[in-house]
């Protein structure tokens, strides 16, 4: 895909939208408006945004837990108001209010999310079987964090995808922490992409704070999957700026009794993906200060509208339980 100014501005706009929705979630949580919890993904916007820029509606993304998937669902086309409304528990939410904080829309290639870390990884392999049998060049992306690499489904899913050359991209956002435990406490190797070697799956390590680095890494993986050559493993080196879950003390930060040295968090926060890309585009003259202000304002308005929409939406009706449980 050619890197045009239009694409660059689109990527930047998506980064801003994802960040603003994340901030809106936290604001609404602390205002007592969410009926559920929230795990912020600030700092990890770039991987999902760049990934989705390569995908078509009929490509499937099994999004993951961090940020409740909004760095994929929003750029894949799910409206912010549906994402927020699900957290408000409303019938207009992306899970019709049944999910708490998950969403599904098969027309957007979003088949859903569950509550078990790594639970979707074998499902992605199976969606890969379906796409391979259908033969239309669809791609499936299996998104997960470093924590998921502790569970068996990753290995069963990767083995299946490798053996049968399934069109699956294993998309790992390694933010170094599974809940409050650092990956080097639980894993023998620093690079999780090493896992792919055992299955003969080509792998790449990517700077997850640099949206263009992610964009350039995803392209060949998508092309490989579309042309029937099989899976790729991409490891994003990234970082979450906030605690595991909002409202909890950040047990991973040293000053709060945890393991994240403040020098580490400060160093990563200097590489804020939204700010990095904004600076880069302004230096290149792709974005003006006016553009930045306008894009911010539009995203703010969008999120304010999502909040209004969510608050005014109806509650789901428990009379619909049976319809939701079994298909006719």
């Amino acid at each position, binding site marked *: 895909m050619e890197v045009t100014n239009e694409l660059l501005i689109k990527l930047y706009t998506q980064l801003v939208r994802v960040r603003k929705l994340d901030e809106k979630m936290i604001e609404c949580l602390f205002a007592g408006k969410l009926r559920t919890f929230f795990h912020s993904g600030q700092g990890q916007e770039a991987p999902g945004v760049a990934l989705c820029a390569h995908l078509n509606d009929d490509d*499937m993304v099994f999004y993951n837990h961090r940020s409740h998937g909004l760095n994929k669902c929003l750029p894949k086309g799910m409206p912010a108001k549906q994402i927020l409304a699900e957290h408000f528990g409303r019938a207009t939410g992306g899970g019709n209010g049944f999910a708490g904080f998950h969403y599904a829309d*098969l027309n957007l290639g979003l088949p859903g999310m*569950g509550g078990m870390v790594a639970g979707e990884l*074998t499902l992605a392999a199976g969606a890969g079987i379906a796409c391979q049998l259908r033969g239309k060049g669809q791609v499936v992306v299996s998104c997960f964090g470093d924590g998921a690499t502790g569970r068996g489904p990753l290995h069963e899913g990767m083995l*299946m995808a490798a053996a049968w050359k399934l069109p699956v991209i294993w998309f790992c956002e390694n933010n170094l922490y599974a809940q409050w435990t650092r990956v080097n406490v639980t894993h023998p190797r620093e690079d999780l992409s090493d896992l792919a070697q055992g299955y003969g799956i080509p792998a790449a390590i990517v700077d997850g704070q640099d949206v263009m680095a992610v964009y350039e890494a995803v392209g060949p993986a998508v092309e490989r999957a579309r042309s029937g050559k099989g899976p790729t493993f991409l490891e994003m080196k990234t970082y979450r700026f906030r605690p595991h879950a909002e409202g909890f003390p950040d047990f991973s930060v040293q000053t709060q009794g945890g393991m994240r040295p403040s020098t580490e968090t400060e160093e990563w926060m200097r590489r804020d993906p939204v700010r990095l890309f904004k600076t880069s585009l302004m230096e290149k003259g792709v974005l003006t200060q006016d553009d930045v202000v306008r894009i911010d304002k539009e995203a703010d308005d969008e999120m304010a509208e999502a909040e209004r929409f969510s608050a005014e939406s109806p509650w789901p009706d428990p009379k619909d339980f049976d319809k939701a449980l079994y298909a006719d």
Partner: protein
Amino acid sequence: MRQILYNAAINEAMHEEMERDETVYMIGEECSQCVWGTSAGLSEKFGAHRIRDSAISEAAIIGSSVGAALAGYRPISYMMFADFMMCGADELLYKAAKWRFAHGGKVKIPLVVRAPIGGYSGIGAEHSQCMESWVWRTPGLKIAIPSNPYDAKGLLKTAIRDDNPVVFLEHKNLMGMEGPVPEETYTVPFGKAEIKREGTDVTIVATGYLVSVTLQVANLLQKEKGVNVEVIDPRTLEPLDLDTILASVKKTKGAIIVDEDTMRCGPGAEIGMQIMENAFDYLDAPVKRVAAKNYPIAGAYLEQFVLPQPQDIANAVAEVTGDSEPLNVAGRVATKGVF
């Protein structure tokens, strides 16, 4: 009508449904061979893309099937032994069962998990279980348990066409059972119990392999004691045809549930309690359960002291009908193992 074996009936259902619908495929450990003899001719006819021999990866067998179902296919996820399903517990009990509901009914998961159940072969605690209670306490799954070749074919065809996840519990001991199966195509609907034997004195609700064992005991009771037992096979536990069971209990005034799963929290606990809630006033005696004792299924010689035996059924009938001398059926109704 022609007579064919239970495993041949399953095989015919597979052939017919895979011919009828190209989105149907099968995946599992050595499913192209199938130790129970249900796979004859499938991989020759449909090829390795539709009869997929997987690694020993139960989570991936069931989980990939959920993913493929979400992506528009109708996989048949094959377990060599039903016990192995729990290696894919998240994939079965959470993903297959819950994802439709948890996403507000926005997706459908047309999936069949074929899982051979049952004991009486002495093969121990992790190769002999009936898994109904594991599955039945999980809303979102349907459960079919065919007790003869006719039901095996008809229920499997219905399962494959259903838009929901179905756990299809085929019994290992029945694979060599012969029975009438018509040449022309048919299906057996879910949620319709069958009265396998009409009777007036007591109702026995039996499932799976124990349907035929119960029928043998019932015939001896009729002949030697004049006790007339009604035997009902629910055929599917979810949906459950409670109406047929209650109508029978109201007629006979007595109820026994015969099931090979555990006594504790097994189908007998659920069906028995439903009878208590809905037909208590009609009962002349407490509801009685015949089921596996609350131990892991012991292997070899000891197995008979855990799994329900024909004599337990005769004893239960005597207790419910108030007969102080149970019929002795020991050694006259055999439990048949496959090994």
